[in-house]
């Protein structure tokens, strides 16, 4: 029903994307960095670029690129580590501004969100003036710039926000959607990677217009369901709603190592550390999960995941760790060099403060671990996550 109502009257969706967020925060805290090629990322040997300033991008630096490559491309760059706590703090400020204009805010990441302002028009004026107000507030209150795209749906809004970066504002009214999309190259479409692009090239599809004019049957035959989806998107049809307060589906932590992990014991140590982190976060959220997934990326970048589902949800680091160790046997860790390990907990249930007593004995041990975890959590709160760790994780 909701969908239909939305169809009846045009929606006003704004996509907001902070410009080079991490480097911009760094420049905010250290004005000497302003206008310089700033690259925020992991370690020089093994890490990847998290975010690069526009000055650095001119050298061909982009996110997810290995840091080593970035250093080669931009030797004069200023390389900085990720200060997530600080970015989160700024992000909170920015999101608070978003929420002033509508409760329908769907965060996509720390620096990006969709807003549905259809219901806010009477209060705040036309969508473009809302977008302008948000941009002004963000700049005045945080000193950062944000690019905005205003359109009748999420898909077009997201493309629009990217058109005029940085500090951009692109408005696509519902009667101009086709005109806006038609000339765009097909790579702009969500989900179109290298393989799809090449397949489309073979069909002589280079722009949204080419795609729109393809017979749907051909696309469906070639790409299946995704072909239909692409065709819809090429016409600017996207009915996805802005989902506020995104339900958390999983809790995960991963780590790219500065040196490949060669032996299984070192791998287990990392897994213990990651498991404890995931468990701590789960407890903080009053959540527990049944499915534990181990992610392994080998030095050749080939990545595998292995998962196991427990009979009852857990928020205990040791239980996550033991499960992950069983999963480890289904991988080549210890036999092949490993570049990254990750642990995730999914199939979450949120129990609040309630807890169900059990009839059987699992409890004795279970209760002990529970009170241990509670004690750990209060230490983490006071002294930080590295204040207490299992003996195996003590540095020599």
């Amino acid at each position, binding site marked *: 029903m909701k969908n239909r109502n939305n169809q009846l009257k045009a929606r006003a969706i704004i996509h907001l994307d902070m410009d080079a967020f991490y480097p911009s925060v760094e420049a905010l805290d250290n004005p000497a960095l302003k206008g310089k090629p700033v690259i925020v990322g992991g370690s020089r040997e093994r890490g990847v670029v998290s975010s690069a300033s526009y000055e650095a991008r001119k050298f061909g630096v982009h996110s997810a690129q290995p840091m080593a490559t970035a250093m080669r491309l931009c030797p004069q760059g200023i390389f900085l580590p990720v200060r997530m706590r600080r970015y989160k703090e700024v992000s909170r400020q920015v999101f608070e501004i978003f929420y002033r204009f509508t409760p329908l805010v769907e965060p996509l990441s720390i620096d990006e969100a969709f807003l549905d302002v259809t219901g806010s028009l009477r209060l705040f004026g036309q969508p473009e003036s809302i977008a302008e107000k948000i941009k002004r507030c963000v700049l005045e209150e945080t000193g950062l710039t944000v690019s905005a795209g205003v359109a009748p749906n999420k898909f077009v809004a997201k493309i629009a926000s990217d058109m005029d970066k940085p500090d951009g504002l692109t408005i696509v009214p519902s009667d101009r959607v086709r005109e806006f999309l038609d000339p765009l190259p097909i790579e702009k479409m969500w989900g179109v990677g290298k393989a799809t692009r090449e397949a489309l090239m073979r069909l002589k599809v280079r722009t949204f217009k080419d795609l729109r004019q393809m017979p749907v049957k051909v696309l469906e035959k070639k790409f299946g369901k995704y072909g239909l989806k692409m065709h819809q998107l090429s016409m600017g049809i996207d009915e996805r709603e802005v989902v506020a307060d995104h339900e958390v589906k999983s809790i995960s932590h991963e780590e790219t190592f500065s040196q490949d992990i060669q032996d299984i014991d070192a791998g287990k140590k990392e897994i213990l550390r990651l498991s404890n982190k995931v468990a701590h976060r789960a407890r903080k959220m009053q959540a527990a999960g049944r499915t534990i997934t181990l992610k392994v990326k080998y030095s050749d970048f080939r990545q595998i995941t292995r998962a196991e589902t427990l009979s009852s949800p857990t928020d205990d680091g040791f239980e996550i760790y033991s499960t992950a160790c069983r999963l480890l046997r289904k991988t080549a860790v210890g036999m092949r060099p490993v570049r990254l390990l990750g642990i995730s907990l999914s199939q979450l249930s*949120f129990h609040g403060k309630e807890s169900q007593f059990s009839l059987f004995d699992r409890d004795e041990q279970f209760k002990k671990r529970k009170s241990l975890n509670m004690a750990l959590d209060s230490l983490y709160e006071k002294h930080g996550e590295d204040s207490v760790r299992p003996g195996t994780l003590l540095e020599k």
Partner: protein
Amino acid sequence: MEIKIDRDELLGNVSRVQSIIEKKSNMPILSTVLLTAAGEEVTLSATDLELGFRQTIGADVISEGSVTISGRKLFEILKESNQGVFHIKEKENNWVFISDNIARFNLACLPADEYPSFVEPEGVAMVEFDGNIISEMINKTIYSVTMEEAGFKLSGVYTEKVSYGGKNFLRMVSTDGHRLSMIDKSVPSLDSLDLAKGVMIPKKGMSELNKLASEGGQIQIGFKEKNCVVKKGGALLVMRLLEAKFPDYQAVIPKEERVSIEVKRISLLEAMRKMLILSNERYRAVKIALEDDTMELVSTNPDLGEARENIEVVYQGERLETGFNPRYFVDALQAMESEVVSLGFIDNSKPCILRGEADDGFLGLIMPMRV
């Protein structure tokens, strides 16, 4: 193979095996039923490899032999017809012709010799039971079998022989770790049942057994090695027992209760159902408070609001307050039959004990929640 068979009788039996045949299996043959014609009978078989069911039905056998037919499709074909007699005929290359004299179906089927037919264990000592009693025992225990697929250790009803007070009883117990239900029934002829140790009967098998038992009349049950065999009329049910060890349930049954109150079953059931309205994943507890001849139920959900209901009871002791999952009460009270049930409490970390006069031999335990 060629037969003419009564539509109603075949439909009844094909319908009852829908719960046995596999809907999604990597062995397509497990989604079929096997029809074997011999003499003046047709035998219908269905299996999921853990459990096998066979039923003989009188029929006009024109030529003997076997066919497999998709269990689901055969069910739908029979259901949509209003004719009295069906004609089923095997054709070349595993095609099967099915007609009610109006519609004609030609179905591509799987070869019958690939059907994994199960063998009936030999030399099983079969013992007669009253179907109604067996059905009552199953109804009062099956609801607390664990729902989680991965909790396979408890995914059955533990069945054993016990004796006390100079009498022998058949006992069924089930638990999901948070609650437990147990029922003892004194049944004649129990002595001859070959059940030296307790066995775990899988939940799916128990519900199939219940279907046969609830038809009433006598039912024959026997155990041999890893199997449970059930016979009734022309029906045969063979199920593989679970090898899991059942926990030491006797140790968790409280020896005595500190407070015991009586309450009308329907009133408590209806109240608990209302409490469920405000429960969700995150907040599911209902608080039960006893004080001053009142049992107060309160369910609080910060996302939704609050619900309360008071029930009159006889209680003058000090205030007692415990949290529970109302779902567990609903399940137990629904299975019980007594007009008035008794609830026993010890403290807020020990189980609540449920009994009822008309629920002879039954005991329910529900563990509290910390709220």
